[in-house]
């Protein structure tokens, strides 16, 4: 355990010395924050709250970028081989990356809340307990998804291609950029199979409607189940050596992490209750659509 903590500390320091990390985890989320607020946030405090939920979700979702790239380049450079000589196993190594990433996400989240409240006039904190749980579980889940990407790709190039594809899906289909309620029905049904959608809609309900922990239980549960599956799969598929290739069947293993969302997706696209709630939230915060001008 102490070795995991020591590793976590070192990885936090390494991340803070890495320009790419600073860009993706600090600059980009703050860019979304000011971009969203300045362009769409003039509709009043409720709109700011609504947008903050999307910004928080994007900040958390970004985790998978950095972690997958870092793990693959550590493998390619022969850094993981050196760790393989020591008694530390794959578990603590992977666990420390999730933990370090979470610790570094917290300050960004706090700054985003503070900016929303004191610079853009957000009046309510929403349901903080739900938000904290969703951010925590979400950060770990998206980190673990990054670790899976690292374990099923052989080169940094492949990793980047998959990351780009995933990011586009998460960004455009989750409701974080375009509200889910504005999608055509078939796209809404599709969106319900994405982990990102549950993070976004969970946060929106927690922040705008003040939904408590019970109300976001399904979202939390799906994220947690997927976290556990993703962690276990990436631990099993973990490769230390640069020349080791992805084992046959690895991609099938990776699907295991997506199963919770397939189940939940099938359920949600069947019920339609969530869409109704999303529509109601959108109506409440922006009855006439998002206004580009101040009142």
């Amino acid at each position, binding site marked *: 355990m102490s070795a995991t903590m020591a590793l976590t500390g070192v990885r936090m320091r390494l991340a803070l010395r890495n320009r790419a990390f600073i860009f993706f985890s600090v600059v980009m989320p703050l860019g979304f924050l000011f971009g969203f607020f300045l362009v769409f946030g003039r509709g009043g405090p409720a709109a700011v709250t609504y947008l903050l939920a999307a910004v928080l979700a994007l900040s958390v979702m970004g985790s998978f970028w950095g972690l997958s790239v870092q793990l693959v380049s550590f493998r390619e450079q*022969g850094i993981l081989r*050196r760790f393989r000589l020591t*008694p530390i196993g794959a578990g603590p190594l992977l666990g420390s990356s999730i933990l370090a990433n979470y610790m570094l996400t917290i300050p960004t989240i706090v700054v985003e809340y503070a900016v929303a409240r004191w610079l853009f006039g957000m009046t309510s904190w929403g349901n903080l307990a739900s938000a904290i749980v969703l951010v925590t579980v979400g950060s770990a889940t998206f980190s673990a998804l990054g670790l899976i990407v690292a374990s099923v790709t052989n080169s940094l190039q492949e990793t980047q291609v998959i990351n780009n594809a995933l990011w586009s899906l998460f960004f455009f289909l989750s409701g974080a950029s375009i509200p889910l309620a504005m999608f055509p029905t078939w796209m809404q049904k599709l969106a319900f199979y994405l982990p990102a959608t549950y993070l976004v809609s969970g946060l929106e309900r927690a922040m705008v409607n003040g939904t408590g922990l019970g109300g976001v239980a399904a979202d939390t549960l799906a994220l947690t189940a997927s976290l556990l599956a993703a962690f276990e799969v990436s631990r099993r598929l973990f490769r230390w050596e640069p020349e080791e290739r992805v084992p046959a069947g690895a991609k099938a293993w990776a699907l295991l992490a997506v199963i919770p969302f397939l189940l939940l997706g099938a359920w949600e696209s069947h019920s339609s209750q969530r869409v109704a709630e999303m529509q109601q939230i959108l109506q409440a915060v922006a009855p006439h659509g998002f206004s580009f001008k101040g009142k």
Partner: protein
Amino acid sequence: MSDGIIQVDNLVKQYGAVQAVRRVSFAVGEGEVFGLLGPNGAGKTSTVEILEGMRRRDGGRVVVCGLDPERNSQELKQQVGAVLQFTSLPDKLRVEEALRLFAGFYHRRREPDELLERFQLAEKRRAFYHQLSGGQKQRLAMALALVNDPQVLFLDEPTAGLDPQVRRETYSIIEELRREKKTILLTTHYIEEAERLCDRVAIIDQGKVIALGTPRELKQRSAGTTRIEVRLARPEPDGALRRLEAVTDCREFEGTYVLHSTRVPPTIVSLVKHLEAEGNELESLEIRTPSLEDVFIELTGRRLRD
């Protein structure tokens, strides 16, 4: 040597259709410096990485510190240290952070400050890994290998690619460790490294041990003969040189004829007479005592660094 701290019996390692290690056997006693000498691709690294618990074997028996590296790899890793051939650390990791981090992985650990002093890295403790010179990186690798105060140390080509100055530094570090009675298994394709550092050497070629003994024993195999290396103005059929007085063997490598002679003066006299008669000329002549390189050539018919 059946109770060695490292025992290897009929070790086999296969990569697809290629047999990299073919029934290799040897044992290393406690406090011994043992060398695996052979060309690149001989199977040295595969052997060492199996002993370190980094690779699985395909056959044979292996015991290190009383443990099976495959089955008890966690326990084994607590007790051994190693310098790997192809490895690195994160660019932005500081020297001191690396030592403290790795020390934290072990039950038994050495004080990082002491290791920094010992490996002349104290001034560089705040430096990033990517700012270190080749020699400093190598010293850090050695320091990290000792961070758990291991009984057994594996050094895989510890001086490959280093400049002569750094190589000599590394030698004196290894000699110091030998005085501390550490058991060391090192692989190398440098003759002088094996001769200077190792108590015993196994010469390994194409996955097989082809000779094993102290450097002195190995060299005595070609006992009784001295090597005379000559370069000539025109090539000679080597059969002709083999008929010279007191010559037991003659081989040609890249234009140099190596004569094995039991008595040097008569050989040289008859060589000169022979060349005079043939109208050939002597460009250079060198008399050498046998080295492990000669032993390797005798056994394989090839030079070590082909």
